[in-house]
């Protein structure tokens, strides 16, 4: 009893600690914690080898090899991606819910491992090996612990029924099938998993009335996690208003149907799934149940974390409308969150920059066609460059005023001003001294006073026109260029409500500086008429942070994987040795030869940054993990981080015909055939190396030229490459 009491106290304490630990004001993205599981520490070939030796003896060896090769490479692609985390509070929560479901089956629970994927896709996956992935997209959409329990129970049912292996057997002609291919079960299997899952769900003590709403979550998962009219919340500020006539008149109906045609879908339609579930519930005479067995507060915290991640993922992947919509919903509950202020500033900056530079991804017409988010998306698409730049500037200006000490927001503000300064038709002279309301009132008053004048006086004014043609031209040009100098134009509503900004001396100075200074050109060399990024060149004594090399082989043989593992060790060692000889200072603490949590988290952050660079290639974006990068910069006293990218190709495995070709062509001349084949063998191992240089201040990444090395890439050969380029 005493033991139970201690456990209970510790449990409550840990929950309290978990709640207390998530600071939504200074939110930090989910990162992996704790000890590194074998799923991550073991290499893919090692896992395949162990699995082939120990698992599924009933399967023929060649099929076993094919099955595990396909499965493990797919799983590892997810496990080693930047979106996968473990040991964090969300993953722990998912594991705790699974424990509830499997309270009568601890053996199965002990076989399972849980991971969270930071993606806006609403999904959960289970594998034959007992790995269960749950996405933050799913967690942001569900409204109770019970719904999560039902989804998890479904996935656990797939695992227990070995549906992945059965799918493989059906598709036995597939070589190296991917996880997604093997996870697309037949509809019968899906219904089977629904039925089994429902049983586990019920046994765990969850209520029947939350089963149908779970299917609704899946049906409407393509929409944001809430459906609210938020237009004014998004655009309007204290000074600035987007008038109602700017909003679209069309209705963006939500068209999702339960009973859609599922003949081409992997899953049965929602109607069938609900139908089966309701039958089972009726048959079992299900009563009672508790929706939040781990506590509602804990669930709300996890849900909020997932929703914060939705904003982050949206920015990373260019879905800025979803990011802005979701952020506005969250702001209602967390109006003072510094994290949300930063994200908001980023979103507005990126929207304005994308519009100004012709980057179309955030304004994709195929996305967001239904619901309230469609209203927002439609407006963002239709704004012209100056209009969007103005709205963005308004918001970012307000945010930097509200957070004068925050380095990140100040940085974003400078970028925003620079964006405005270079946006077409954006001119400070155009802006009004008045708010929109005042502007309309003023114009109306002017119109009324004109109407009150006698016609003769008006006509006389019009005809009294002294001076030469040139006087008239000068008069016209010197007249007030701002909107206040002319008639009210409803389409130029955005020129009102900006007076405090355009009359801020500091802003004006910054604006003028931004207009006159030019962006430094990317350093490239021209070779054969084509521009190429230069080789990795840093001045002597310049310090840079060397990150873990990204080493990949094109084939999955054990020999190639051994070479890959050895490259991962030799590469940093050779680079450091030659770099030091050349007078460079290389920080290698963040490129550990042994796996560590810090190393994994670092790589996740940098991989995310590379995704952002790909999404926002043509603009000066502000990275989502700006603060993390600044911390690295401060800690290492370096402004540059370098990720080596290495691709190893062994033609003997990937392209054996290439080796045999000389012998086949010159078979009648044996010495030539033999020489050709030997030369091809000698150069069958090819290594392609390039570097990604990341500026820690701006987050911008540049790729260098690709270097090609033939022969076994040992330390000696790699060192010669570095000697050449450093």
């Amino acid at each position, binding site marked *: 009893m005493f033991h139970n009491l201690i456990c209970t106290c510790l449990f409550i304490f840990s929950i309290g600690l978990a709640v207390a630990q998530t600071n939504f004001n200074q939110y930090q993205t989910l990162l992996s914690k704790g000890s590194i599981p074998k799923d991550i520490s073991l290499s893919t070939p090692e896992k395949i080898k162990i699995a082939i030796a120990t698992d599924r003896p009933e399967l023929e060896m060649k099929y076993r090899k094919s099955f595990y090769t396909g499965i493990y490479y797919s799983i590892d692609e997810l496990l080693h991606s930047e979106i996968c985390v473990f040991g964090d509070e969300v993953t722990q929560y998912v594991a705790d819910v699974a424990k509830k479901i499997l309270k009568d089956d601890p053996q199965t629970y002990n076989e399972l491992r849980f991971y969270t994927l930071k993606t806006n896709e609403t999904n959960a996956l289970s594998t034959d090996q007992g790995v269960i992935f749950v996405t933050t997209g799913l967690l942001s959409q569900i409204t109770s612990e019970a719904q999560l329990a039902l989804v998890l129970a479904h996935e656990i049912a797939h695992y227990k029924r070995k549906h992945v292996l059965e799918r493989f057997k059906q598709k036995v002609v597939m070589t190296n099938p991917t996880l997604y291919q093997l996870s697309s079960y037949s509809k019968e299997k899906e219904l089977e998993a629904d039925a089994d899952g429902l049983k586990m769900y019920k046994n765990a003590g969850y209520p029947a009335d939350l089963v149908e709403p779970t299917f609704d979550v899946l049906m409407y998962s393509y929409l944001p996690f809430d459906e609210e009219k938020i237009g004014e919340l998004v655009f309007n500020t204290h000074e600035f208003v987007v008038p109602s006539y700017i909003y679209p008149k069309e209705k963006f109906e939500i068209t999702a149907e339960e009973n859609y045609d599922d003949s081409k879908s992997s899953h049965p339609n929602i109607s069938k799934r609900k139908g089966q579930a309701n039958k089972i519930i009726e048959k079992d005479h299900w009563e009672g149940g508790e929706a939040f067995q781990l506590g509602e507060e804990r669930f709300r915290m996890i849900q909020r974390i997932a929703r914060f991640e939705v904003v982050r993922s949206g920015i990373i992947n260019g879905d800025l409308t979803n990011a802005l919509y979701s952020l506005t919903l969250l702001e209602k509950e967390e109006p003072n969150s510094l994290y949300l202020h930063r994200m908001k500033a980023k979103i507005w900056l990126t929207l304005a920059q994308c519009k100004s530079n012709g980057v179309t991804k955030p304004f994709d017409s195929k996305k967001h066609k239904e619901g309230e988010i469609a209203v927002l998306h439609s407006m963002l698409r239709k704004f012209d460059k100056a209009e969007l730049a103005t709205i963005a500037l308004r918001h970012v200006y307000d945010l930097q005023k509200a957070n004068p000490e925050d380095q990140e927001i100040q940085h974003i503000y400078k970028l925003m001003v620079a964006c405005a300064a270079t946006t077409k038709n954006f001119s400070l002279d155009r802006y009004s001294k008045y708010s929109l309301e005042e502007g309309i009132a003023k114009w109306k008053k002017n119109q009324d006073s004109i109407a009150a004048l006698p016609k003769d006086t008006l006509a006389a004014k019009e005809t009294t026109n002294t001076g030469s043609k040139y006087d008239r031209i000068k008069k016209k040009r010197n007249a007030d260029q701002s909107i206040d100098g002319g008639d009210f134009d409803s389409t130029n509503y955005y020129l009102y409500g900006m007076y405090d900004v355009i009359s801020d001396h500091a802003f004006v100075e910054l604006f003028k500086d931004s207009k006159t200074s030019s962006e430094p050109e990317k350093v490239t060399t021209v070779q054969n008429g084509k521009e190429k990024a230069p080789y990795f060149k840093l001045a002597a004594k310049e310090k840079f942070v060397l990150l873990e090399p990204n080493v990949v082989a094109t084939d999955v043989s054990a020999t190639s994987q051994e070479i890959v593992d050895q490259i991962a060790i030799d590469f940093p060692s050779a680079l450091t040795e030659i770099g030091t000889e050349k007078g460079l200072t290389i920080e290698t603490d963040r490129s550990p030869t042994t796996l560590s949590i810090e190393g994994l988290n670092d790589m996740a952050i940098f991989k995310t940054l590379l995704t952002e660079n790909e999404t926002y290639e043509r603009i000066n974006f502000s990275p989502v993990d700006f603060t993390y990068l600044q911390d690295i910069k401060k800690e290492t006293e370096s402004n540059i981080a370098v990720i080596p990218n290495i691709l190893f190709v062994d033609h003997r495995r990937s392209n054996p015909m290439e080796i045999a070709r000389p012998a086949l062509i010159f078979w009648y001349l044996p010495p030539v055939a033999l*020489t050709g084949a*030997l030369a091809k063998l*000698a150069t069958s191992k*090819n290594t392609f190396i390039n570097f990604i240089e990341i500026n820690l201040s701006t987050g911008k990444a540049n790729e260098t030229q690709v270097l090609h090395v*033939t*022969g076994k890439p040992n330390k000696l*050969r790699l*060192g*010669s490459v570095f*000697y050449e380029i450093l």
Partner: protein
Amino acid sequence: MKKLHSLVFLVALCIPSINHAQKPGFYGKKITFQLGIGGHHNTILKLAGIDERNFKNINSPFNKSPYIKSNQFNYSFYGNIGITAWKRAALSLDAQLYFGKKIANIAYYAEDQFGNQYSFNGYGQFSYRSLQITPRLEIFTAGANGPVGLTHILAIGVEIITMKENDFYLIPDNNGGISSPQQLAYPNINKVKPVLIVPTYGLEYRHPLTKSLYLNFGAYAHIHIPIISENSSLLDSGPFFSTYNGSPSTKAAGSRITNLFSARFGLIFAL
């Protein structure tokens, strides 16, 4: 000699340009010295080597003599000095000492101690050496970090054949007069030393052992084109020889034509 001077001058001209090259050389080491051995295959021997074929066919217990060996494979020693002048190319000067043998159908005339002249026909094996000097252009393939890696060799060499005067074995074709192969002297055998031009294409693979030491594996295709040789048989006072279809040195030059392929293994030292 004049040609050699010109070549050295040309190489020396390149040296200033090396300093401006984009870091050529393996770990910046541009100068290489190489020593090694080669194996040569007389590929079309059976087609072109009438004398060799006939020798094999004669009814003599001595045509399988250990003194007279098959001429299909021969060996050589070589050395070269090279300079990696550019990122993708190098120049080198190669010297090769080749050891060859040639079977020829000859007529032998001699006098005995009493002043009586006698003669017979037979097959003789001549031994010879040749010295080949070859300036070479080495072009590194993509992915090679010259001089290490796979390299194309383009060269035109000059070869001079020197017959060995005292290394001649004779087997009479009717076994008359001489009972077993004899080693005989052939004075004036080098009256005219054949000179050949040797255009060559090769592939060499250099495998690095350390920053300064590499192994070299090469395979080559070449044609030996005689440009200077004896035109007619010579008749000297005895003992003397006459070969049908040309003098021994001419025969040796001809036999070089059959050597179309060769291979090498060497050790490279880099500075």
